[in-house]
């Protein structure tokens, strides 16, 4: 393990300052319009001190905790994919002339420091790194790759999981498992707010070495950190049984459960918008009125919309049940065939932000209870 430091809240402020001084746009959690969002932060005073979020299926409320915790919440609706892979990205723009068309130079990628990234969200970035990986030397998502490579990640371990969290099932938390530059654990020790800080990369170690007034943690503080994380792991709001799950879902393409979900699902696409790993997108081509300037924009898309599967005048996935089946089967089953891991990190956002509270863990369990693989209806799997 790399060297561990400890500080009070002032040390957190100095860390934000150090990242800003080294040329980063520091993005962190802030409370705005009664919601927790990620936006630019200037210092520790911008963090959601004393706030927590209560999460249940289809329900999200911010409440005052009555303490001084900076990281006493779980996650808001928006994930970090909004910065690495924005909802709308200009892929290229260009000008047409009689000699063909020329593309404009691409803008410089922004240099971000993400402050307060939850372990499940760090894992989600890794999942998308695999999806967008390069197979022929050119990154498939050039701007995302360039932005990601120079993004500094300050992870914050979870000591208070939310009601819809299941990172333990997905093995992504509550302690961050790599892919970060600095990791912070917030503990209350002898009535004081203490922050255990460790480097996870050379860049992270360098930033920490340059900081003054970081202390060496006491044994008791280290123990408090470990016990807080162990307690968090034992307090997950939900569990997802992943044993044999890919085969289970693929073998239940004709399960009548999909029809029952279709009766509740509004096909609103909220789950795919808030999901930190959902990557489906579409492109929009626009032309200036005089016909000389073209812009191609990549936009988030969702497998829940009717237009997503549209071809030759009709959608291929007409029923909502087929669309939910596509989504959950992709997340938990076919994603494994495609990328050797699941496309779910257990953040619980899709449960919280579903207007009717459809719960991915609950639906997977329902399919498991009504497994049709050994019946005639189960013949012929999905993948």
């Amino acid at each position, binding site marked *: 393990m790399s060297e561990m430091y400890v500080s009070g809240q002032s040390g957190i402020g100095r860390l934000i300052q150090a990242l800003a001084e080294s040329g980063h746009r520091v993005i962190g959690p802030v409370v705005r319009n009664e919601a927790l969002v990620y936006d630019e932060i200037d210092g520790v005073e911008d963090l959601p001190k004393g706030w927590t979020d209560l999460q249940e299926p289809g329900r999200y409320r911010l409440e005052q905790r009555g303490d001084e915790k900076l990281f006493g919440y779980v996650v808001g609706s928006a994930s970090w994919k909004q910065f690495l892979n924005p909802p709308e990205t200009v*892929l*290229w723009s260009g000008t*047409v002339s009689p*000699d*063909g*068309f*020329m*593309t*404009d*130079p*691409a*803008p*410089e990628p922004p240099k971000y420091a993400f402050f307060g990234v939850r372990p499940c969200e760090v894992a989600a970035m890794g999942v998308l790194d695999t*999806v*967008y990986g390069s197979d022929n030397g*050119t*990154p*498939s*998502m*050039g*701007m995302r*790759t*360039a932005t990601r490579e120079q993004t500094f990640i300050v992870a914050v371990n979870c000591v208070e999981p939310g009601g819809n969290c299941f990172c333990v099932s997905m093995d992504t938390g509550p302690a961050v498992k790599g892919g970060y530059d600095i990791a912070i654990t917030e503990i209350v020790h002898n009535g004081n707010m203490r922050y255990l800080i460790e480097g996870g990369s050379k860049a992270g170690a360098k930033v920490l070495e340059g900081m003054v007034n970081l202390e060496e943690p006491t044994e008791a503080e280290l123990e408090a950190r470990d016990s807080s994380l162990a307690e968090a792991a034992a307090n997950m709001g939900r569990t997802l049984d992943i044993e044999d799950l890919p085969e289970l879902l*693929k073998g239940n*393409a*004709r399960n009548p459960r999909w029809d029952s979900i279709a009766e509740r699902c509004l096909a609103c696409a909220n789950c795919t918008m808030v999901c930190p790993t959902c*990557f*489906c*997108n579409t*492109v929009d*081509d*626009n*032309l*200036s009125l005089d*016909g000389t300037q*073209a812009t*191609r924009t*990549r936009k988030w*898309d969702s497998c829940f919309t009717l237009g*997503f*599967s*549209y*071809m*030759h*005048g009709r959608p*291929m*996935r007409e*029923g909502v*049940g*087929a669309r939910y*089946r*596509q989504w959950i089967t*992709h997340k938990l089953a*076919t994603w494994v*065939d*495609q990328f050797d891991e699941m496309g779910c990190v257990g953040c619980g956002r899709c449960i919280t932000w579903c207007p009717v509270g459809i719960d991915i863990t609950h639906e997977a369990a329902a399919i498991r209870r009504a497994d049709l693989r050994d019946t005639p209806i189960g013949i*012929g*799997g*999905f*993948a």
Partner: protein
Amino acid sequence: MATLIEPAVIDQMTPIPFKVRSVREELSHTFTLELEPPNGDFTFEPGQFTMVYAFGIGEVPISISSSATREATLLQTIRRTGAVTHALGTLKSGDYVGIRGPYGRPWPMKEAKGRDLLIIGGGIGLAPLRPAIYHAMENRDDYERVVVLYGTRTPDDILFETELRRWGDRTDITTLITVDAADRGWYGAVGVVTRLIGRVGFDPSNATALVCGPEIMMTVTAERLMEGYSMKPQSIYVTMERNMKCGIGVCGHCQFGSKFICTDGAVFSFDEVGHLFDIKGV
């Protein structure tokens, strides 16, 4: 000459300008663009496709219909169905289109060496098969019997008709055409394309079938070859189609079970995808 300014971050979504050398009307709704690669250099394999971009209008996946070795230009045969294909249909010689690619897994021309080739097309499905037919003719000794079976709706819908007739005159390949509905001037076969299979000699135990057409035509053809001729699904290849937006496996639109049609296909052996045809809404 068009120059492509190298963007600071090259993204695979940036199209390269290709000059239109000629436009050929094939059928009432189908045309072929002949395109010049910017450096005269474009390599692909039979069965691959490109993303063809009409400036400012949009982009569509189109299979390549020319020989992979013979010409320096690229042929793309397109049916007018939507805004982009209609825009492409108004292009003239000297205009430009954007091209990305080639993408996708090609027809198994190497794997089929030493075997009978059974090439079965329906409608515009003949276009992606034509590079495979050219390949077989250019490397005739690599294969045993080469059979081309083509079915289309009416005698007016026969794609590449002059060429099909020319192939029909050759002794080293067998070419048969059928139409679903004929008029008085038609003296050829009438009926679905699977009915032609029984009229040609081939060795089902040592044959590779390349099938391209509407999904239902491919399913029926594959089933006929398996049930009627005991061909293994591993020896039957089909090409799949979805409304793909990227061609490089990142937009998610073309998922078919575990497969990304753009990168895992579009050519699949029937044992890879056959079971998915039975499930509604995959």
